[in-house]
């Protein structure tokens, strides 16, 4: 284990975090929130001091392997969340540190689950920081680090793999640095486009920026207690479209903009993704007749909710707790499906679902005809056995973690739907669940233990299980 390199990288992560606090700092300055300006400066100083200490010595041996990659990513995210919680905690906006940690983890993991009962009471600077954590967490801070730093020569691929979601992560172009730059380039361009569309649609600049950050990272923190419900239909449609766009595999955008358009048509995941969204909208539309006043309103709210849950964003324009049971179950199922691999969204991911269903079909066919040669194919090419195995193990671990976590939070004695959807909403990085944790509720009533458990669920969900599990496995630390 190359400890020196891990610590060095962590140092840089902290420095990046300090740099990112410039945005809420400027925001606080604009709104003349003197106390917050001071708080952000203090937190930046802390990050810079620790970051500089960690990255003081440039290690000679820069080699990073899979193990180092996983551990670095897991540590980075925990540490980012600890330091990211400081502005909330020190300024007194969230007086309890566990609450502040939960809120920050929820931000960085792009979950959007909140313990705040009154969001509007927060200062503008704090709201900006809260939304910015979504944007940073969406694409990942280590990916950003790779885009700007010549970190190490060859081990970076393991960092990218550990931080980016999906069953098999690969580069877009030969150089990892260029890959990271392209990913962030697309990310920034889309975010900027959304900010402009919302700003020219009559929204305030502050709301345009914060809500775009929340959409881009598929996070879900709003700036109002009612989430998106109070905004105009135009804004709601813009957010719907962008939520769905940010749930698409970013490598497909690269293919779209730089030739290779065929890849888009070939992508089974993309077809399945849009297929599921359209089908769900149609099913809920039929099932929920009578809930909405007009067909337009029904279409708007349903497509918004389906997009929001499927991409694991978690914004709400309406309280879907009041929808018929069938519609609610569809939403819960969408929570598990999640967005596409290689997007900013969470969940199990559409491509994993496709591989799972194809494995089942394969198993059935080989049971009937044991001698048939069968391989799982996706996008016209064979899926490697390693990938299939990875998906199966992922699912098994996912289920185990899900139920262990549910068992732990059930100590708080809330009802089954609340417990089940609270874990589903955190492990899939969505935000709102049903009943008590529905779009109008929040997570503040849970005990400290449950909040810590759910914080880890969020991290496990965002980093796709194994980096976090590896951190706690004694084998990782053995020579």
């Amino acid at each position: 284990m190359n400890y020196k390199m891990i610590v060095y990288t962590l140092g840089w992560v902290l420095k990046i975090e300090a740099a990112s606090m410039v945005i809420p700092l400027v925001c606080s300055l604009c709104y003349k929130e003197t106390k917050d300006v001071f708080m952000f400066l203090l937190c930046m100083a802390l990050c810079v001091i620790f970051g500089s200490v960690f990255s003081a010595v440039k290690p000679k041996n820069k080699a990073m392997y899979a193990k180092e990659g996983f551990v670095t990513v897991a540590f980075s995210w925990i540490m980012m969340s600890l330091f990211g919680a400081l502005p909330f905690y020190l300024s007194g906006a969230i007086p309890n540190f566990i609450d502040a940690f939960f809120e920050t983890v929820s931000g960085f993991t792009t979950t959007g689950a909140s313990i705040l009962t009154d969001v509007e009471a927060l200062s503008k600077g704090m709201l900006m920081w809260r939304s910015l954590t979504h944007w940073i967490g969406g694409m990942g801070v280590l990916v950003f680090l790779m885009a700007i730093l010549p970190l190490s020569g060859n081990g970076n691929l393991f960092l990218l793999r550990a931080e980016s979601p999906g069953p098999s992560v690969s580069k877009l172009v030969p150089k990892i640095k260029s890959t990271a730059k392209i990913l962030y380039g697309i990310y920034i361009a889309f975010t900027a486009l959304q900010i402009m569309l919302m700003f020219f649609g009559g929204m305030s600049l502050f709301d345009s920026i914060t809500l775009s950050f929340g959409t881009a990272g598929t996070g879900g923190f709003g700036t109002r207690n009612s989430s998106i419900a109070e905004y105009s239909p135009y804004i709601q449609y813009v957010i719907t479209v962008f939520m769905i766009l940010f749930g698409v595999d970013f490598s497909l955008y690269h293919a779209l903009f730089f030739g290779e358009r065929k890849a888009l048509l070939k992508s089974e995941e993309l077809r399945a993704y849009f297929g599921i969204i359209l089908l769900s909208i149609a099913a809920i539309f039929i099932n929920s007749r009578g809930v909405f006043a007009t067909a337009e309103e029904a279409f708007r709210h349903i497509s918004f909710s389906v997009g929001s849950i499927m991409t694991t964003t978690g914004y709400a324009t309406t309280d879907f707790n009041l929808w018929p049971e069938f519609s609610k179950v569809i939403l819960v199922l969408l929570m598990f499906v999640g967005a596409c691999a290689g997007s900013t969204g969470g969940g199990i991911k559409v491509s994993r679902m496709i591989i799972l269903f194809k494995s089942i079909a394969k198993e059935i066919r080989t049971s009937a005809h044991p001698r048939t040669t069968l391989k799982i194919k996706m996008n016209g090419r064979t899926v490697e056995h390693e990938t299939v195995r990875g998906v199966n193990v992922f699912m098994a671990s996912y289920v185990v973690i899900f139920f262990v976590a549910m068992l732990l939070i059930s100590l708080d004695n809330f009802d089954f739907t609340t417990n089940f959807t609270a874990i589903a909403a955190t492990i899939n990085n969505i935000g709102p669940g049903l009943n008590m944790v529905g779009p109008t509720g929040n997570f503040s009533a849970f005990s400290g233990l449950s909040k810590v458990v759910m914080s880890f669920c969020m991290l496990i969900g965002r980093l796709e299980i194994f980096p976090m599990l590896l951190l706690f496995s004694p084998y990782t630390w053995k020579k």
Partner: protein
Amino acid sequence: MNIIIVGCGKVGYKLIEQLSYEEEHDITIIDTKDEVVQGAVNDYDIMGVAGSATDIDTLNEAGIDKADVLITVAGSDELNLMICLMAKKLNKNCQTIARVRKPEYFKAINLIKEELGLALVINPELTVASEIARVLRFPSAIKIDTFAKGRIEILKFEVPKGNVLDGMKLSDMPSKIGTHVLVCGVERGEEAFIPSGNFEIKAGDLISIVASINDVSHFFKKIGNRTNRVKDALIVGGGDTAYYLANMLIQSGINVKIIEQKQERCEELFHLLPKATITHGDGTDNKLLMEEGLAEFDSFISLTNIDEENVLLSLYAKSQTNGKIVTKINRIEYGNVIGELQLGTTIYPKNITAEYIVRFVRAKKNSLGSNIETMHFILDGKAEALEFRIKEGSPISNKKLLDLELKENILIASINRGGKPIIPRGQDMILAGDTVIVVTLKEGFKDISDILR
């Protein structure tokens, strides 16, 4: 540059290693084995495509349309040529480099090269054979690299115990020995460095010198090393390398005996090399070797396909004869360990192949200013010797060498003007039209201006 490498064997790996040092290359590799591709992608910052490169989809996926260079080092010649042909048809601007090793293809290589539009053809066996032939011409040397179209050499040799050079300071060399020779590199144990004037030579050091061919023999006479070329050669293993080598040696009047295990191949060689003596037998049998007169030969070359056999054979030969010993080693990973055995000259075909291609790729990039004419890895691969052609308006021309602010660990080893080498002194100037040999411990120099601070 966008580079595609087809085939990820030892040479492929070596190429990736060398080329990925240079930041600006975007490298994509193609190999049929998925796990090989995965391994390479994990080790280096490159992209990998698993599949057959003769499949047009694979080539497209690897980005043939944007490729500047395609290098094929796959298993067979036919495959390599086929892939190069397809690549050239898909992208006219892509330079193709193929490894072709069969002698019968190589006979018609100009025809093939022209017809397929190949930029470079590399025949590892032929290259290896010429490198061995060069060393046999000058048995005191462990390694010889030539520059300036063969007029200048960088030559590596070991300083024997009790030699005049033992304990001599470099600054005293001109007065004590009085020849036009410059020491450009020293290997002592694991270390390799470019020595300064007050460096003291010790016995056991491996010294690399730059000089013209005449000056080299003069120098060696002065220090009392043997300078005469070998008269006869015993080769064990009758593969393609042995064939090419024997051909070259016979042409320069050297007596050649080849020991080969397979009867069929012996007969083939007999027809191909009428002037050589072909012996059928197991070259690893020491009785046979003695019977064939190993002790009387003044050079011994082990060219079997098994590294372990070659090492053992050479160790045995070393105990029996004072002649020159050359060992071919295929596996490059154990270079350090084998170096410690002091086998004399060891030849790594994979390194030579990679070096040849890297040199081409690096030289191709330079179109303005000065150009790389020749490039060799020296000092056990720890340093590079580059020959640049100086064009009009180069930042280093028409200035006294004293006034140039060079980077660390760089030596201007020779200035070649009008076919004559000049050993550079502080007052000398580099002029346009010269070629300059630069020795550096850094990698990736592309232009002569890179040597400046």
